[in-house]
Structure formats: C-alpha cells, structure tokens
C-alpha cells in the first residue's frame, strides 16, 4: 500500500479484521465461496446417490460387455450386432471423429476463402460473402443440418429412378458417380497385389516435398535465389507415384457403383446423413471462421502492407510472407474454439440418423440397457477427452506461430 501512515499499535489479531481489513478480506471471501461451492457439489452428489438407491438403481458399467444386438450402418471398423456395447461405442466414436476431422478441414477451407473474399474490393463478391456469413451464423446449426438433410432426401432421385430402359435419373461423370437420396456412391479403389509399393512411394514423395521445402528455404536464405517451388513440388507429388503405378502393372483399380437389387452396390457409399451433417457443420462453422480470418487480417496494420509494397513485394507475396504469418497469431486461438464447437456440435447427428457417439452410446445403447447415468457420464468423459486432445494439439501449433522474441 502506498498510503503508509503511522504504524498502528499492534492489537493482535481481531475477528473483525477478517471483514474490515483488506489484507484478510479477500481470503475470507474466497474461503466462503469455496465452502459454498463444495456444499452445493456435495448436496448434488448426495442427492443423486440417495435418489438412485431409492429407485433401486446402482452404477454399473458391466453392460458395456453385453451383446449390443443392434446394427450400425456406417462402420469404420468391422462391427456386427453380436459385438458388445463397448465396440458399438467405439464405432460411434470413430464416426464422431471422422465427421469432426472432415468438418474441421472443410470449415477451415470455406472460412479462409470466405474471410479473405469478404475483404475483396469487388462489391458483389464481398456482399455475397457477407450474406453467407450472416445467414449461416445467425441460424441454429440444428436447422441447417435438417435443411441439408431435407434437400438431400427430397430433391435427389431414389435409386429406383435409375432403373429401366429410359431412366428418370442418370449417373454423373461418365457413369461413375451416382447421386441418390440415400447417399452418393463414388468409385472406390481396389487394392491389388503390389499396391503397397505405390502407397509407400507416395508417402516417400510427401517426405520428399517436405525435404525439398527445407532445402529451398535454406538456399533462399543463403543465396537469395527463389526456385519455382510450386511446380517442383507438384512434380514430386505426382511423377514417382505414377511411374511406380505403371511399373507394378497398375495394381490399383476402381470399383464403380452399379444398381444391384434395391440399391447401388460397389463403390464407396457416402450416406446422406453424413453428407448433410458434414456440409451443415462445415458451412456453419465456416461462417464463424470467416469472421475470425477477417478480423485477423484487419488486425495487421496497413503500414505493414505499405512497407511490403515499398520493398517491391508483389501482392500475393505480401499476403503470404507478411500479412498471414502475423494474422495467424490472432487467428489461431479463436480457431481452436471453433474446432471444439464443431466437434461438440456433431453430437446433433442423431437428428439425421448419423450413428455417432451420441446415437450409439447415448442413443440405442442407453435405451436398450436403460443405464442413463452411466452412459451420460461415459459420453461426457469421452467428449471431454476428445476436446482436450484437440485443444492441446492446436496449442502446440499456436506456440509455433507465436511471436518469437529474439
């Protein structure tokens, strides 16, 4: 304290000091708040336990090892109705993670494009992007999911329409893609003998691209010469893999979708429930990311751009070398919360019948076993872990783009 006066006589500690003495008051308040919090928590837990025992229910996770007895349409790992509930949960979790990863990628792409274009000097482009952002972020995401699903299942033809001499609907892209109201069927790769070599070559060329980037950077820093990076990287990406593909005798073939029985068979089936959920979540989150990107870019002072221009940098280089690296520092932290939001919003999947964690563990498993509390607790724990993993992963990236003090 700066208001030092005469040293007060030492009366020892009095109880009233807990309230009137600023040295103790904050501690008093904290202790009381803590006690109140603990009381409420203890009350809630005790109430739950008493009510559960009054209902004759216990907390038991043994049901996870019983036969699940229901089917799941989209399985990333093999699953049948004979498998136990924990495996159904795992299938659901993988579906959740799939939609989260796909959603985060697409939302980022949409968001960055929309965010940059919203700053465009072209009046029409900027207005269209404003319209997109405002319409998507101001309508609840559940409605968007349902709207996308309604469009997909009502507007697209049923597989029946593809049948007959003069079908009402036909497949796209030289009969390789079938867009139906049950989902989109695309050609799927069939891995023949020797396809492993092609995959290994492809992975090695990815490594090569990374190594080349390092080399090119060092060369630039020492000599100042800039290589045609993009074209060289593109060549490394395609040429070796295609060479090996032909050398191994074209081991990878495609299986095309074709009408079989009631439905299309063959190819890869992307269900409408997944497409609707994926697109709706991506466009919704994308609109938030667009605003984050825009604010990140606007946060960089105009002087930076002018200085870069004064040094003779072209606009694209100014963006890539000057503006974006600085803007990223502003963009990344709110971007993390958007990724978390998207992951958690994916639990609305049940509305369109996408079998995610909420629909398996929190839906059918919960209903057939009647273990509400256990299922809910487990589900909360899993979402918590997934979210913490995402945010810690993104925090690592955030550290790498932070302003480095030298």
């Amino acid at each position, binding site marked *: 304290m700066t208001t030092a006066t005469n040293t007060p006589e030492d009366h020892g500690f009095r109880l009233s000091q807990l309230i009137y003495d600023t040295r103790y008051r904050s501690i008093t308040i904290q202790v009381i708040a803590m006690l109140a919090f603990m*009381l409420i928590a203890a009350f809630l837990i005790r109430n739950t336990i008493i009510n559960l025992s009054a209902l004759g229910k216990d907390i038991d996770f043994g049901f996870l090892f019983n036969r699940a007895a229901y089917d799941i349409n989209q399985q990333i790992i093999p699953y049948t109705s004979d498998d136990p509930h924990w495996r159904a949960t795992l299938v659901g979790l993988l579906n959740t993670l799939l939609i989260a990863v796909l959603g985060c990628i697409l939302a980022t792409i949409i968001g960055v494009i929309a965010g940059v274009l919203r700053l465009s000097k072209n009046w029409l482009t900027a207005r269209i992007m404003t319209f997109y952002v405002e319409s998507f972020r101001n309508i609840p995401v559940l409605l968007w999911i349902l709207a996308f699903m309604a469009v997909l299942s009502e507007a697209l033809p049923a597989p029946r329409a593809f049948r007959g001499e003069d079908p009402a609907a036909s497949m796209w892209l030289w009969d390789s893609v079938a867009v139906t109201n049950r989902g989109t069927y695309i050609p799927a790769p069939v891995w023949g003998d020797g396809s492993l070599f092609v995959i290994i070559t492809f992975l090695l060329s990815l490594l090569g691209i990374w190594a080349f980037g390092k080399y090119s950077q060092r060369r630039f820093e020492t000599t100042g010469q800039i290589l045609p990076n993009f074209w060289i990287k593109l060549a490394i990406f395609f040429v070796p893999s295609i060479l090996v593909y032909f050398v191994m005798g074209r081991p990878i073939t495609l299986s095309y979708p074709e009408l079989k029985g*009631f*439905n299309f068979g063959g190819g890869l089936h992307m269900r409408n429930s997944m497409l609707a959920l994926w697109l709706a979540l991506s466009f919704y989150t994308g609109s938030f990311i667009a605003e984050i990107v825009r604010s990140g870019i606007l946060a960089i002072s105009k002087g930076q751009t002018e200085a870069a221009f004064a040094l003779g940098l072209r606009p694209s280089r100014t963006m890539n070398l000057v503006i974006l690296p600085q803007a990223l520092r502003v963009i990344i932290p709110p971007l993390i919360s958007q990724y978390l939001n998207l992951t958690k919003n994916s639990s609305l999947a049940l509305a369109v019948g996408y079998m995610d964690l909420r629909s398996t563990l929190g839906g*059918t498993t919960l*209903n*057939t076993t*009647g273990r509400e509390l256990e299922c809910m607790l487990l589900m909360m724990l899993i979402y918590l872990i997934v979210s913490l993993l995402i945010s810690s992963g993104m925090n690592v990236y955030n550290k790498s783009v932070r302003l480095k003090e030298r």
Partner: protein
Amino acid sequence: MKKSVFLGALTLAGLAAGTAMAQDSSTLAAVKERGVLKCGVNPGTPGFAAPDANGKFVGFDVDVCRAVAAAVLGDSEAVEYTPLTSAVRFTALASGEVDMLARNTTWTFSRDVDLKNTFVGVNYYDGQGFMVPKDLGVSSAKELGGATVCIETGTTTELNLADYFRVNNMEYEPVPVESFTEAQTQFLAGACDVYTTDASALAASRASFENPEGYVVLPEIISKEPLGPLVRHGDDNWGDIVRWSLNAMVAAEEYGVTSANAAELANGTENPEINRLLGVEGELGAMLGLDNAWALNILTQVGNYGESFEKNIGENTPVGLARGLNAQWTEGGLIYSPPFR
C-alpha cells in the same frame, strides 16, 4: 459485507433443502393434491395418441390416461399430457416427471426388471411388421435382402430387425431415424425401401398417407409386442390403481357395461360382479384408496375397452385395425381381466 455473504449462504442452503424434499410420498397423494394426472404419451401416432384439430390429445393410449384420471380425480379431462420420444420415456417416468406412461411401450423382461418399471397390463397385443411401396413388387419379408430399412432408434423394433435379418441370412442397410414422423418423411421420399415398426403403428401411419393404396403391409409379423401402460417401481398402490383402471375397462366390455348404460346399471343389477365393479356392492374403491364410484366414472366418461377400440383404431376409423388378438377372451382373443371380487 458480512451480512450479505451470510444471507447468500442461507438462501443457498434454503434452496438446497427445498429441492431435497419431494420424491418419496405416494403418487396417489401427489396426484390428488395436484388435481391433475401427468401422463406420458406418444407425440403423434394417429389412433393411439395424437393431438386432434383442437390440439387436444386423443387416442387409444390416451384413453388409458383418461381412465386413470377419471378413477382418481373423477374427471377424465384432468390430465396433463407429456409427449415423450421413445428415447426419453423411461427417464421421464423414473424421474417422476410423469406419473404413468401410456405410450405403446413393449413389455419386456429387462424393461420390467432391470429398468425398475411395473407393467400393469397389456392394452394392445402387437407385433412388428414391414411396410413397402406396392410398386417395389415385394410380397414377403423374406425377399427384403439388401433393402434399406427405416427404423426408429432406441426401440425394441431395432433389435428385432437386426435379429430377423441375421437369422434369415440377409443383408440390409439400417437408416436410423429419431421419430415416427421423421420415419414417415424418409419413407415417403423413398430414402428407404422399407419401414418397420409395430404393425398397429404401420396401419396408423399408412392411414395418414396421401395415397394409402400405394403401400402394403407385408404378412410377416416378426415379434411379439405386448403394449401396455406402466408405472415406476416402488409404489404398488399406484400400480394397482392403473392396473385395475385398465381391467375395469376390459371387464366392462365383457359384462356389456358401456358408457351409455353404466349410470343406469349403477342402480343395481342381478349380476354381483357388475355390482362390485360399479361400486354398488363391496368396497373395492376404498381398497384402492379411491372413491367407490371410480369404475363408474371411467365407464361413463371414457367407455369400456371395446368402445375405446372402435372409436380410435377400429375398423370404421382411418386406422382400420381388426380386433384380432385384441378381442375378448370369450371371442377368441387375448383380452382378459381377472375377476373383480
């Protein structure tokens, strides 16, 4: 400072104590004090439970709620309906949000024993069936291999479906949907070839289609689905009330007591069973903790089992269900009430 903190803590403690009360006390007392019965019903199955043009719930299951309200409160309209999805119904019942469920719920072992419910009887003997569009050209469920099937998640039908296709060595693609109406939308849009649920609900939904003739219900019934009202464990007296309210409707049909003649028969008849039912003789009502005119109230206000059936789901309604298994035992059906004595 000191005062406000302490007052705050006191308020919290008071709130806590307030919420800690409730539960426990008997459901009958709670319903009587509240003056209204809280009944969980299906949000929309025409014939069984659906809002009519005025937004009032009507239907065959709804009549069970009305019967209980008539027995307990003397007024069949003193019911507060809570529309519940199949996913939340047991939680709503267990937590005391509703006093009873009359929501086409299948009586199974695990729901009865493990979920701590008490099924008080069966008001409709049902079984799971399949509906397909006529132009699919399918006449038996055995021909459905490879089909896409719309199914409500969290129901016993989902488990039956998985078992049926596995036992018959057929592949299928389940399309899980969250509600009855969503299932209809998907089915009508052709997003699935087959819609499966209880045969009664199939008939009900077919009746609501624009073009009912374009759809057929396949002959196979793949499961037993005894549907009935239920209450939670722990209040046997309340269970008895709901059980015997249903039985009163069933017994009344057997003895020919209808909404039209109940009041007249309550003056006394030759048949002692009818006399006991209508409270002319004996103290059956008092044994339940109810007025002795409890069953008379049910019959004058709601009607007997057969009347409710014909009014809501019988052959002259759009749902158009035959009595079949749900005829009285005297007519070859399974509907049977234990004696009132």
